[in-house]
């Protein structure tokens, strides 16, 4: 086995941890091949792995992101337009620190500085959708080709979605106070100590926020993994069922959960023969659109723009799901 493969298996996928948990399950008198033993093994292994990876990743990524505050992103994007600007906005969206409660001030800040709606929306779509931590977790649970494909299609949704919204000329759909808001200057420079403190706080904050979702997600994943027969799953949402992708999107949109909570469910579903496209569409719908964030967005844009935004993103996710299901044998 190659060095890269070994490192990937042991560090990212934590194969050693799975072996350790399997021995632990045996030690308490359960058979890992049985339903109960298998569920316990899946649950313990996934919970430890997700929290360990999450903490390390959030720390490193937050530290890196502290170099790229939204003010700098805005300055970089200022005065640009066209497809290049949208692509740049989508790429920066993956790097800029982002919390859903900050998305509205960010939207106001971008729009007030005169950035076109298309660029702002490309950023707003890619920011929650393609997140560095989730990409690495995807690589850990599935594999690198899938993680990279997820990034690529996430960026495509952001670029195309932003472009479509820009073409529709809905500039008048933004609340008036947004345009007249003052534009702040440079972000303050941080010292190295402040960056590390910021990274540490982010870990504490995010772990505190997502742990219930992770436990619920892994719980559902463990149940699917060991208790629900593959025939039932594939009869309901199997790859050959045309409704599987639309259903996944419909269920995912109103849901407010973190991608970290949906990954274990995705893992278990793929194991039961659900199409990769269906699972990716579900994860994207959960992260890109949620009722709480739409309600917040409604406070700064009029209803037609909000509906357009939701529609464009939904259409993008649907097509990605269908395309991935059609070509999934390239990946698994």
């Amino acid at each position: 086995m190659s060095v890269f493969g070994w490192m990937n298996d042991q560090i990212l996928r934590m194969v050693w941890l799975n072996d350790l948990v399997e021995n632990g399950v045996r030690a308490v008198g359960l058979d890992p091949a049985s339903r109960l033993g298998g569920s316990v093994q899946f649950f313990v292994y996934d919970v430890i792995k997700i929290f360990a990876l999450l903490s390390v990743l959030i720390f490193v990524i937050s530290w890196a992101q502290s170099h790229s505050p939204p003010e700098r992103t805005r300055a970089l994007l200022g005065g640009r337009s066209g497809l290049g600007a949208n692509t740049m906005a989508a790429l920066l969206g993956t790097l800029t620190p982002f919390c859903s409660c900050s998305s509205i001030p960010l939207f106001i800040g971008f729009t007030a500085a005169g950035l076109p709606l298309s660029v702002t929306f490309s950023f707003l779509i890619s920011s929650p959708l393609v997140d560095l931590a989730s990409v690495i977790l995807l690589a850990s649970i599935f594999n690198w080709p899938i993680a990279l494909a997820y990034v690529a299609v996430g960026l495509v949704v952001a670029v195309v979605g932003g472009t479509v919204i820009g073409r529709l000329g809905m500039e008048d759909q933004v609340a008036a106070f947004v345009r007249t808001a003052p534009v702040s200057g440079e972000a303050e420079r941080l010292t190295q100590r402040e960056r590390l403190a910021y990274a540490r706080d982010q870990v504490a904050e995010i772990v505190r926020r997502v742990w219930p979702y992770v436990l619920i997600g892994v719980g559902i994943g463990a149940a699917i993994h060991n208790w629900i027969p593959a025939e039932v799953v594939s009869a309901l949402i199997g790859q050959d069922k045309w409704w599987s992708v639309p259903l996944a999107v419909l269920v995912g949109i109103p849901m407010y959960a973190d991608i970290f909570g949906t990954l274990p469910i995705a893992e278990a579903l793929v194991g039961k023969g659900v199409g990769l496209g269906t699972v990716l569409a579900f994860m994207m719908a959960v992260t890109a659109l949620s009722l709480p964030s739409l309600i917040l967005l409604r406070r700064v844009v009029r209803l037609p723009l909000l509906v357009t935004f939701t529609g464009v993103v939904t259409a993008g996710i649907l097509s990605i799901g269908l395309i991935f299901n059609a070509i999934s044998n390239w990946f698994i």
Partner: protein
Amino acid sequence: MIIKILGSGCRKCVTLAENASAAAVAAGKQAQIIKVTDFAEIAAYGVMSTPGLVVDDKVVSAGKVLTAEDIAKLL
């Protein structure tokens, strides 16, 4: 003095408000703490990352949860 906390009511904003009131007490200042949740008003301060901290109508920090000690230095 008037201290304003800008933010839509997320957890960070609540912590920052608590730290600000502790800082005011520690610094021995009479301070009124106001939570600003209206986006129009937040936007008027030009803040792009919440929570923001405003002391006597001047933005002193954005996007950070400062500790009570840090805030006391700013008062």
